[in-house]
Every structure is written in C-alpha cells, then in structure tokens.
C-alpha cells in the first residue's frame, strides 16, 4: 500500500483480555515505531525497530506490553491482561532510515478497555 496501515481501526475489549494490534509499514521502510496517545496527552514512545537490530523497548510501560516485527515488515503490538489505563490511540509509524528522517504515521488503532 501507499501508506502505513493499521488494524483494527477500533477495538473494544474487556479488562483482563489480551489484544493484538497490527501495523503494515510502508514497503522498504526499515524503521518502525509504536507510539500511543492517551486522552489529553502527547504521543508517548513505546518501541522502535530498525532492520534486524534488537528493538529499543525502553518506552514500553510494563511487561504486559510486547511487540514483534516479522521479516522486517509487519509488526504486532500485544497487550496482555489489558487494564482500563491502556485505553488510548496506538499509532504506528515507519521511516526510510533511522533517526533523522520524517516518520509516516498510520491512522491509529483506538483501543478502549471496558
């Protein structure tokens, strides 16, 4: 596709359930980021993938959060045992090179934990 694609666009889940959020980056982009935006907050960095290097997981808020990127392309963000404070818009972005290049964002997945 032409842009970064995320699915689902909306997800409502019950507290305690696990969720998986998917990101298809722009073809050829080696860098992939996950951010989240909680209500009234800025974009919070979660995790960064660059090529085959070990991901930068420094932004993951707890061990309930994990992410993987298969084949250097599609990425999945998994949240286990969801809590109400996990409710947010989860945004994925990709860029052609690491660091100093603008990242292209997907439309986000709005997660609501009830």
């Amino acid at each position: 596709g032409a842009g970064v694609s995320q699915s689902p666009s909306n997800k409502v889940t019950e507290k305690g359930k696990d969720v998986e959020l998917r990101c298809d980056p722009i073809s050829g982009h080696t860098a992939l980021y996950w951010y989240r935006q909680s209500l009234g907050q800025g974009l919070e960095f979660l995790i960064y993938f660059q090529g085959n290097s070990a991901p930068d997981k420094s932004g993951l808020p707890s061990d309930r959060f994990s992410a993987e990127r298969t084949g250097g392309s599609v990425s999945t963000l998994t949240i286990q045992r969801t809590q109400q404070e996990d409710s947010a818009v989860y945004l994925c972005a990709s860029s052609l090179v690491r660091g100093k290049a603008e990242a292209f964002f997907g439309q986000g997945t709005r997660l609501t934990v009830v």
Partner: protein
Amino acid sequence: DQQVKQNSPSLSVQEGRISILNCDYTNSMFDYFLWYKKYPAEGPTFLISISSIKDKNEDGRFTVFLNKSAKHLSLHIVPSQPGDSAVYFCAAGAGNQFYFGTGTSLTVIP
C-alpha cells in the same frame, strides 16, 4: 516528565493572519526537531523539520524557528488558511527516539 512541552492547548487565528505555534524542550542533547499536523481520526502527517545546525527552515507558508539557547522552537504559518485547522505536534529527539508534545489545536477562522 514531559521533555517536550506545548503550553498552549489551543489557538484561534483569523484567515490570512499569521499563526505562531510554540514548543519548548528540556534536553540539550536533542538535535532534530519536527512538526506534525493531525486531523481528527487520522495519523499525524509530517510538516517540516529542522536540525540543530540551523535556526530557520522555510517551506512555503510554513517556517520553523529554532532557538537552541532557549530550547524553544516555533512554527509560523503565513498566511493562515481554514484548511490549516488541525492539531499540531512538535517533536524533538536525537538518534532513534523522538519525544512529542501534547499538541496545539489550531482553528483558522474564515
């Protein structure tokens, strides 16, 4: 602790006038700065960037100014148009990680 701050949550400007959006950061190691624009229900889209070796970057109606000593950057939109109405995020960082502000909602009044 917010490393990038946008202290004005909203701004209203008349069409044709200048919009000035401000952003402050705390980490003097940040060497690259970006502005993103976000419409409702869409992901942010890149607008303009500046590296720390410059103090100004211009792209059409959009100009970003960087004051490293004050750890401050601003985005000027001249002239403002109704289609510019959106939430504007500034981002700052170094290397892999970028930190975003909380955004400023700009409304351009026709």
